[in-house]
């Protein structure tokens, strides 16, 4: 169980004026898929960064299975089972796909192991193992490899920031299969895509006015379909 209590995150803008990115966020994530959705700039990615420890909240606390992990480092969270797939995958000059996956799973990988990680994201290991994780790979390829590194690492809490971005639509079903395999973990996905929202057990809606609503998928779909500004994405796709 991952609990956020009164999480706030405030930054100063260019003029030195304080700006709240997150304010008084109270959320609970249990096992299963939670999808966070909402407009750009509403603080979704910031929340993911705070959960992984990339940013420290300016107020509030984070409890994981009852333990306060608010001040815990990225490395320690990773070792505790927190796993992230970046929205913008990081590029490395010289580090190969194989090396990255080995760093992720903490052991040497043979061909079968490589295939297992990469086939889950629709890539053939043979074509990628010796390629560097750099600009020679397309955006979609980097995104899949990013997801593969999260799968290779494993863990108890998966933080996936727009995992579908840059991935072609026909591969969506495979992507959904990847999420479903993680059903016994805490999976938090930031997404705008209805097909990913449909996989959710819980939907968390962020709005620009810092209002956050969370509920079961069915309740939230009803809320989303009632119009108001929430209909911004689902309304379009229907």
């Amino acid at each position, binding site marked *: 169980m991952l609990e956020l209590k009164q999480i706030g995150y405030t930054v100063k803008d260019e003029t030195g004026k304080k700006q709240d990115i997150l304010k008084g966020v109270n959320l609970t994530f249990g096992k299963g898929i939670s999808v966070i959705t909402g407009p750009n700039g509403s603080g979704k990615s910031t929340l993911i960064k705070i959960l*992984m420890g*990339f940013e420290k909240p300016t107020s509030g606390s984070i409890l994981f299975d009852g333990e306060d992990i608010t001040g815990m*480092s*990225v*490395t320690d969270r*990773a*070792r505790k089972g*927190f*796993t*992230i797939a*970046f929205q913008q995958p*990081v590029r*490395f*000059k*010289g*580090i*190969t796909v194989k*090396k990255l996956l080995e*760093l*992720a799973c*903490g052991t040497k990988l043979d061909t079968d192991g490589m295939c297992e990680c990469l086939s889950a994201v629709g890539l053939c290991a043979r074509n990628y193992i010796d390629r*560097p994780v750099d600009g020679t790979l397309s955006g979609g390829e980097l995104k899949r490899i990013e997801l593969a*590194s999260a799968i290779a*690492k494993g863990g108890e809490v998966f933080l996936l920031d727009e995992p579908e971005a840059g991935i072609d639509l026909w591969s969506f079903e495979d992507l959904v299969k990847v999420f479903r395999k993680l059903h016994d973990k805490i999976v938090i996905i930031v997404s705008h895509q209805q097909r990913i929202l449909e996989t959710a057990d819980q939907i968390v809606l962020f709005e620009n006015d810092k209002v956050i609503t969370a509920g079961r998928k069915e309740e939230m779909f009803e809320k989303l379909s009632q119009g108001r500004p929430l209909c911004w994405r689902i309304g379009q796709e229907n």
Partner: protein
Amino acid sequence: MDKIDEELLETIADLHGVPEGSFNIRKNGKLLARNSDSDVEIVSKKDKDGIDIIVKPGVKGKSVHIPVLLTVGDFQDLVYNDFYIGENADVTIIAGCGIHNDTCGDAVHDGIHTFHLEKNAKVRYVERHYANGDGSGKKEFMPVTKIFLKERSSFTMESTQLGGVTYTDRKTFATVGKDAQLIVKEKILTDGDERAITDFKVNLRGKNSRADIVSRSVARGKSTQDFHSNMIGKNECFGHVECDGIVLDSARIISVPKIDAVSPEASLVHEAAVGKIAGEQLLKLMSLGLTEQEAEDAIIKGFLH
């Protein structure tokens, strides 16, 4: 050959004892072992210290090892090695020098290498420099490499400085003929008070000549590195110079890439980027469970891979 020799040979040339095929092992200015055959002939120079390596035309798939070991201080080893690569030959030459200096006197190796590639010849030249030893004496390399490439020939140079080298000043000159190509992959790691200077001068003289120089360097501690390149396009040609450097601690990297399109048909590109490790790279690896130090090491190892 003692244990220190064996360790140095393994580090600089992946050798476990005496290699197969043609080789020349030089230690402290003297010949330690040599094998010369009819395909690749190795002969001592008569007018100065050094050897001529003559690869006969059409010889393919052969490798030549010419490592140099320096295990004493107060010694400057100046050697001239000339390589003559016959038409259509295709060989790998593994050079490199290892210094082990436990003394307070300086150990210096000056290797002057000249390559003459005939038409359609192909060479992969691997050179590693490495030094160790606890003495206060300096461990220095001053290599000069001259490369002359005739029509359709190809020369790939993989030069690596692995660490421990107090001072190095490397000069590389190349003249690239018609349809010929030069590829350079340079990797340098410096630490402490070490200093490394590399200087490339490439003349793209022939029509459709090509050159690609990629230098990757990591400077740690208080070390300094200088990268200079001067690529001159005198014909319809393509040249690319890339210098990527990672600086850590209070180290410094200076990159001065110069390109000169003498011919309006020349296409020359240079790229240079020097800076610390990107924060997001560290975060990504830390999010896989590595400590910051482990992440830094993994990034550097990959970068210099």
